[in-house]
């Protein structure tokens, strides 16, 4: 029995019972036996909120709950119900509260009052092991739908603002990821400007794709007559040796042959580009004889023959 800080004692004492008592109350109308916590969390929006409230100090949470509607009333009842018990539960370390919470939930299906006692003893047993700061409470985050948010001093603790804060944190996290993705976006400060940058970048990428497909179309049309002019059997037999030999002699025919070979082997070549995975500075050997190599930059491509 460590003598914990008064703050901790107050809210953890309120918190633990609140968790399982709530669960009990909710489980009775539901009548569902087994099933994970996730189910219940999903079906009841209220439970998550209550747990979040439980993170904060009890006094405040009950006050805010009173101001709420019907659901709030129910919660308030729970709170009252627990304040009786909280006197018994004096020493529980805040670090264990998550664990207790889980235990309470797991035990819930059996749904008996004895359970309360059981989990309480557990909580007491756990209390001896670790007496860490309240900040660590959010550390062992369970992989569930709800998020533990810890309210700092002076921050609002009602469920809505807590949820809102969680959402904002999530958004800023995603924004950070996006900032890393978009070049030159790291130095930009301010959400609106970052979003502007992102939008510009996406637009430029889309335009680039359009532009490139236009280019590709132009090349394709140039390729068009040559491919049609030849029967497929000749297409099927591309020999780089032959083209290499012919090159100096007949320019027009090579013009017709080169593309065919290209089209046939495009798949392989492109694959080879990726195999080397040099997006900037690709060198491809089209064949041994021709020895064409690329240097693909962001804006231009060099190729040597």
């Amino acid at each position, binding site marked *: 029995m460590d003598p914990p800080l008064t703050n901790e004692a107050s809210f953890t004492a309120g918190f633990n019972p609140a968790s399982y008592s709530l669960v009990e109350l909710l489980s009775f109308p539901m009548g569902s036996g087994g099933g994970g916590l996730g189910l219940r969390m999903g079906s009841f929006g209220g439970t998550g909120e209550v747990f979040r409230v439980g993170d904060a100090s009890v006094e405040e949470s009950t006050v805010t709950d009173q101001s709420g509607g019907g659901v709030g009333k129910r919660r308030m009842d729970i709170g009252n119900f627990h304040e009786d018990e909280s006197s018994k539960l004096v020493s529980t370390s805040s670090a264990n509260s998550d664990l207790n919470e889980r235990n309470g939930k797991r035990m819930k299906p059996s749904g008996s009052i004895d359970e309360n006692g059981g989990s309480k003893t557990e909580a007491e047993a756990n209390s001896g092991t670790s007496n860490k700061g309240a900040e660590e409470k959010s550390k062992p985050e369970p992989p569930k739908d709800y998020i533990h948010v810890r309210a700092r001093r002076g921050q609002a603790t009602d469920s809505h603002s807590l949820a809102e804060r969680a*959402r904002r944190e*999530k*958004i800023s996290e*995603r*924004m950070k990821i*996006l900032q890393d*993705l978009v070049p030159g976006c790291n130095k930009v400060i301010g959400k609106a400007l970052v*979003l502007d940058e992102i*939008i510009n*970048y*996406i637009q*430029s*990428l889309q*335009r680039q*794709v359009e*532009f*490139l*497909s236009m280019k*590709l179309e132009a090349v*394709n049309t140039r*390729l068009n*007559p040559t*491919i*049609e002019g030849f029967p497929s059997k000749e297409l099927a037999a*591309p020999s*780089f*040796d032959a*083209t290499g030999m012919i090159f*100096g002699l007949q320019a027009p025919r*090579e*013009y*017709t042959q*080169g*593309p065919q070979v*290209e*089209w046939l*082997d*495009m*798949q392989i*070549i*492109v*694959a*080879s*580009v*990726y*195999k080397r995975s040099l997006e900037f500075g690709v060198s*491809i050997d*089209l*064949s041994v004889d*021709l020895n*064409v190599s690329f*240097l*693909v930059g962001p*804006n*231009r*491509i*060099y*190729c*040597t*023959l």
Partner: protein
Amino acid sequence: MTTQIIPSNPDSIKTRFTYSFVRALKKLNKSRGASVSPSMKETYRRYHMIRVASYASMASAVGSKRAWSRAVLWKIRNRTSHRALKKKSRIHALTRTKVRENPRSDLNFHQENDLRKLVPGGEGMDFCRLLNETAHYIKCLRTQATTIVVVWAVVVVGVIVGRIGDGCGGWVEMSVTCDK
């Protein structure tokens, strides 16, 4: 002569995109009419087809687990198959977006709406989810652009190899400058 080279990561989106895009290009080439000098309209149609092919192959390479790829595929399918349904669905989509204005958007940036319009399927999405999808979409667009550049280069080199032949010792510069 050329050895069959197995791509290093056959399951990657890049590889899948490349394969399906090249296949689509081949198909487009085959189905092309015998017109020697294509009209402006025809050219535009082909360009459009290539663009659609690139988007479709990207979306199908990504698969159906992403909202934006689903939206792209849905859009393409509806456009090509039934026009009537497209009109109807457009009206429907308009009304739907109006109804489903995100009520929780506390950051009332007009940028958010712009972003929704840019990312396919972005309407009626939670803002968090929208950002997630945007990140993935950006990655995929980048891959798409790079791959198209490479495919284009390969084709062009085919042409150049045919045209110039020997006697070309230095670097041939092909600029793909993208004016914004």
